[in-house]
């Protein structure tokens, strides 16, 4: 079964047994994070707050594009997902 690949930042690899790239199933970012947390407990709390929003300054990029839909962002079977900072600018 095809699964999306999630790239894990080095400081979060403590949750994934040092794995940098993991395969996770899901059709939305919400499902991806949920399933990621099942496989690697505790990682969800790093990403999502109690209001079900991304934590301050964090977002996920899907297939190279910054996520605009939050947790309902659709994900395909071959998607590549990166956990990144939210860059602004001046």
């Amino acid at each position: 079964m095809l699964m999306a690949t999630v790239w894990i930042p080095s400081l979060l690899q403590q949750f994934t047994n040092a794995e940098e790239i993991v395969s996770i199933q899901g059709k939305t970012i919400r499902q991806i994070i949920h399933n990621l947390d099942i496989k690697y407990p505790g990682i969800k709390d790093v990403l999502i707050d109690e209001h079900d929003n991304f934590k301050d300054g964090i977002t996920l990029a899907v297939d190279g594009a910054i996520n605009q839909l939050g947790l309902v962002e659709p994900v395909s079977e071959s998607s590549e997902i990166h956990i990144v900072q939210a860059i602004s600018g001046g």
Partner: protein
Amino acid sequence: MKNKSNGRSSHVEKLEVHPYTTKYKVIGTRPIRHDGLAKVTGQARYGADINMPGLLHSKLLRSPHAHANIVKIDTSRALKIEGVKAIITGTDFPITKHQNINLTEVLGNARNQAENVLATNKVLFKGHAVAAVAATTPQIAQEAINNIDVEYEILPSAIDLKEAMSDNAPLVHENMTTLELGSRFGKGTDTGVKSNISSHLQFKGGDLEKGFKESSVIVEREYSTKSVHQGYIEPQASTAQWHADNTVTIWTSTQHHFGVRGATAAILEIPEHVVTVIPMEIGGGFGGKIPVYLDPICALLSKKTGSPVKAVLSRKEVFESAGPTSGSYMWVKMGADEKGYVTAAHLYLAYEAGAFPRSPVGSGAVTALTPYKVDNFLVDAYDVIVNKTKVSAYRAPGSPQAAFAIETVIDELAEKLNIDKLDFRLQNAVKEGDRMPNGIPLQRVGCIEVEQAMQSHPHYNAPLSGPNKGRGVAIGYWGNFGGQSSATLAVNSNGTVNVITGSVDIGGTRPAVAMQAAEVLGLTAEDMIPTVGDTNSVGYTDPTGGSRTAFTTGIAAINAARKILNQMSDRAALLWEIDSSDVEFTDGVFINGNDKKLHLTFKELAGKLLKTGGPISASASASPRNEGVTFCGNIVDVEVDPETGKVDILRYTAFQDVGQAAHPSYVEGQMQGGTVQGIGWALNEEYFLSDDGTMLNSSFLDYRMPTSLDLPMIDTVLVEVPHAGHPFGLRGVGEVPIVPPMAAISNAIYSATGIRMTRLPMSPGAILEALGITETSKSPQ
């Protein structure tokens, strides 16, 4: 041709408009900007121009200490002064009664913003405001300020970056602990260590040790930069009027009036819809006018007094309290093999955040290595709290500092390998598919094209003869920001179109956005009437900044224009009694597909709208997922005076991948403006602070920014690699120009003197010190 102002020779015989051609009818042309006449004749209205009956004036009392507890504030003497109508302190903001400061939540946290605007229990930097007065005249307000008594308990302060990071440094926030991965990037792991380091971010790839083993040359250097200010010529100014129905109107100088609305509403704990923010014309921002400083104060004072209240920062206050960008400490170690391929890169970045978390160190960590294909890397980035004013964004925030370090090391590696500086960069340059340090693959980008343009430009190989002269190059990268924008278009009876957007116009985005809509509608730029709408007049729009406005607000305008076309086509079909699908539109003309002799121009059809069903208008928003990134490069020639250490810029050429220039003159203006700011950052600008955190050069006389008399023309080369994420291929252009100048100038100084400068600014005194020249010696030691 001699430059009359300074006698230096210019390399061009006459001022030429850069030869530029476009495939579009409007995009890529150079119409006169719609707001130009008002601005050059003084008719444009700025924040400080607001006057109205009963207007009160506000002044702020500021802390004389960098770090102190506020024991007591006594306003009794001030309130007795005739003309004083109200005084507030930080505890008068409703939010401070119900929320605590949250140092793990920084982005948009209103409680933290309120604390930065007016301190409650503790002052965190010299100049931190502690009280605000509203009085009938500015002079009376100032007198009242002088009669407010504040009792402070002075605390040890952490001013120096490296000292603030040390284990025994005084803590700015007693209970703050360092977060791995950081508050900007997710809560991550709380180390439990109390420290002035608010967060640690890391990017890692490949095998660093292996990479260095494969190196035939390695360069390792330390760098430091000082805080610099955006230097916008117009200070912050705000006027608020609280109305009898408990709504409030704010006129303000800001890059983000929707942000002013949100912050003011949150701080005063009122619904957003009761706050109307009207953005005035703005005299520069560069990121420094995204935070709020005055608006909640004026709004609350107006509520208390029943009168409109106006506040304008002095230049001294701007420097001392309206966030500069971060000073930094950086360490870089890079290696390359004998063929000139970079094999390893190890970076340590520490940036000052000021009194609250969130410096742009994360952006610096991402952008530093992005121009180069490096498989083995480790980047550690630290966000550091110091007792200084909270930093604010400044044009590609975080990237210029990191580029200063990386681009000079790259130059040194090339030299050690005896490889041409641009050849070295080209063979390591990134292209589509290569990954940035955060792992995201690049799309189609113009890094190689920019460097090729530099290498083939006459400047690169022009003779540069004479002593103490040198040439330097550097590359810059910035990721841009997409964000969200809204636009509303309305067709007038004479065929002109009103274009209302939510984007404050800082650098020509008003015409740039209007031109994109005009291109869709087959009209001219002059047919478009662009206006910046207030928060009640147009949909939510993110700040003007992040190089997003011409891009994202342009897309919103394009989307609205397409809706207009659909409606106009439907109206033409109605008139011709045909199906809408049979209406064709070409070059501003609607054509009856069933009888092509029948046609109506856009203007002819517009004249019929009111009698055939009514006016036509359309709104649209844009939230593009693919904002694109941009690369740029500089070639600079300098001459260093060995007796004074002064560096003169002899010639400067700036290159940039702009995707597609909407209005080439304004794109060139962004390139020139950003370059000049980078030159000032490189050669002159810094915050001189005393040991107690006092800024000693808080005026434009002593904080020396380059003027037109200091520099030659900045030549520009627009490289166009269209961005697939925009209908016309635009890329954001406003920020990246500031990224490479410091490194380019440092490399040029090395070429001229043989000295590697690793500290900014490279002021005359710093140059002489590097040359080993002291007051008592007349030659380098």
